[in-house]
């Protein structure tokens, strides 16, 4: 509360006279000082002037009354999403992290509650938020070290200009597909109050000052996004038969060459992709017939990709990004 303390101040103000003169005279002076946070709430501004004069009998000094103001608390906060780009996720992935900054841009110590909104619209899916986590100061998400936010008891108490890192931890639904984008809105809300800018709360500010909502209205929010990056594989199998007579009939002794084309699509990667195919009944695998990309593979489980065991071939393709084609062949003879 900026209260007034004045000694000999006249009770009746002459504002009506003062205004035209002030406006005319001061029109030239209107530069805005860049106020980052500004004078701390509760600070007293005491103004006093001194006059000296000489009535003929020597210098005399006169002090004015002390005009005192108390600086009120301006409540402002900002929330920023601080990942440099959409956070890449995959269908069904857990502990997916979005990083935000919550700042007290007001001029008094203030308590802020946090909440998240997954259903923000304008995206393709709603991440399942599992927790909000307060960073311990190093800017790195560390489960078990950073503090899981609990509304009320764990509300943030921030000094003016203080900025803290907050993580949103989510699970990505299993049904999402490559290219889907899902956002989470983090909201910081002043516990003193929110509302239209300029709304005041008598005596609720720091140091017994009033609190008044600044341009942010006492709350701040920002959206962070996940981007699903996955890949799928399509297998196309074909067969070519060569009979013992140079024809293409399927008779005992005919050799069948199976060709499996694996085509991956999507922006992500298929981890440890393996193609397995059982040798059909009434056929016998031709040893050493597996090829990958035209290159022969041994039947043993070893350093190359191909292997044969238990009447099935297996080709380990490793991590395969989307947009790739792998061609596998193997041969059998008809019994």
């Amino acid at each position, binding site marked *: 509360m900026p209260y007034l303390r004045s000694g000999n101040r006249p009770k009746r103000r002459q504002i009506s006279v003062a205004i035209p003169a002030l406006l005319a005279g001061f029109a030239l002076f209107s530069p805005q000082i860049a106020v980052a946070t500004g004078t701390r709430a509760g600070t007293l501004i005491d103004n006093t002037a001194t*006059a000296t004069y000489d009535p003929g009998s020597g*210098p005399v000094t006169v002090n004015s009354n002390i005009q005192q*103001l108390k600086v009120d608390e301006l409540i402002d906060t900002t929330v920023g999403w601080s990942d440099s780009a959409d956070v890449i996720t995959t269908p069904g992935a857990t502990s997916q992290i979005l990083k935000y900054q919550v700042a007290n841009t007001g001029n008094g110590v203030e308590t802020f509650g946090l909440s998240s909104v997954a259903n923000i619209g304008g995206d393709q899916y709603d991440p399942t938020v599992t927790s909000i986590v307060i960073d311990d100061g190093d800017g790195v998400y560390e489960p078990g070290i950073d503090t899981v936010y609990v509304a009320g008891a764990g509300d943030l108490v921030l000094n003016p200009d203080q900025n803290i890192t907050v993580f949103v931890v989510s699970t990505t639904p299993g049904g999402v597909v490559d290219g889907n984008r899902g956002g989470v809105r983090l909201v910081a809300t002043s516990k003193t109050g929110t509302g239209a800018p300029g709304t005041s709360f008598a005596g609720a500010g720091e140091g017994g000052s009033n609190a008044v909502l600044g341009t942010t209205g006492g709350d701040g929010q920002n959206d962070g996004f996940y981007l699903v990056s996955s890949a799928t594989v399509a297998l196309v199998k074909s067969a070519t038969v060569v009979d013992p007579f140079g024809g293409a009939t399927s008779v005992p002794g005919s050799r069948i060459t199976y060709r499996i084309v694996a085509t991956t699509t999507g922006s992500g990667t298929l981890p440890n992709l393996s193609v397995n195919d059982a040798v059909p009944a009434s056929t016998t695998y031709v040893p050493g017939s597996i090829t990958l990309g035209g290159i022969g593979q041994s039947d043993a489980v070893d350093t190359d990709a191909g292997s044969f065991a238990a009447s099935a071939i297996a080709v380990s393709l490793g991590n395969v990004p989307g947009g790739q084609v792998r061609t596998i062949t193997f041969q059998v003879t008809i019994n």
Partner: protein
Amino acid sequence: MKLTISAVFFALSLSSPSLAQNANAVSLNSDVMVERTTTDANGRSQVTLEEPRMVVPGDHLVFVLRYRNNGAQPAGSFVVTNPLPSAVAFQGTADTSATVSVDGGRNWGTLSTLEISNQDGTKRPARSEDVTHIRWAFAQPIPAGQAGRLMFRGIVR
């Protein structure tokens, strides 16, 4: 030239302080108001002066000093000095007779004549927010019974 004479008077008054308090002869009153700009539905902005019931950083303050010579004698060498509260950035005065100091009252002048020493020893022109004091030195005595008003503006840092 007026300025120079006033400054000399002021210096004299400082060098020969008198304990003879004639306290009620001249009164000096300090007051402050908040200047707010509001925009109406038609987009016209309006500036109003209000009692400082609510003051936050960035608010514009108007300081008003009222003086009155209640004595029977003219008050000569009349000088009014107002140190700027540290939380207030000076924003100028319409009164061209005022001088300011940016070094705690050691040197005085109009703002454009003053400089601030940087850390590295270089100097830069003083800015309004550097002002530490404002002063009015009157060339003419204040006649008995006369009153007046001095004003300057500040912004809450």
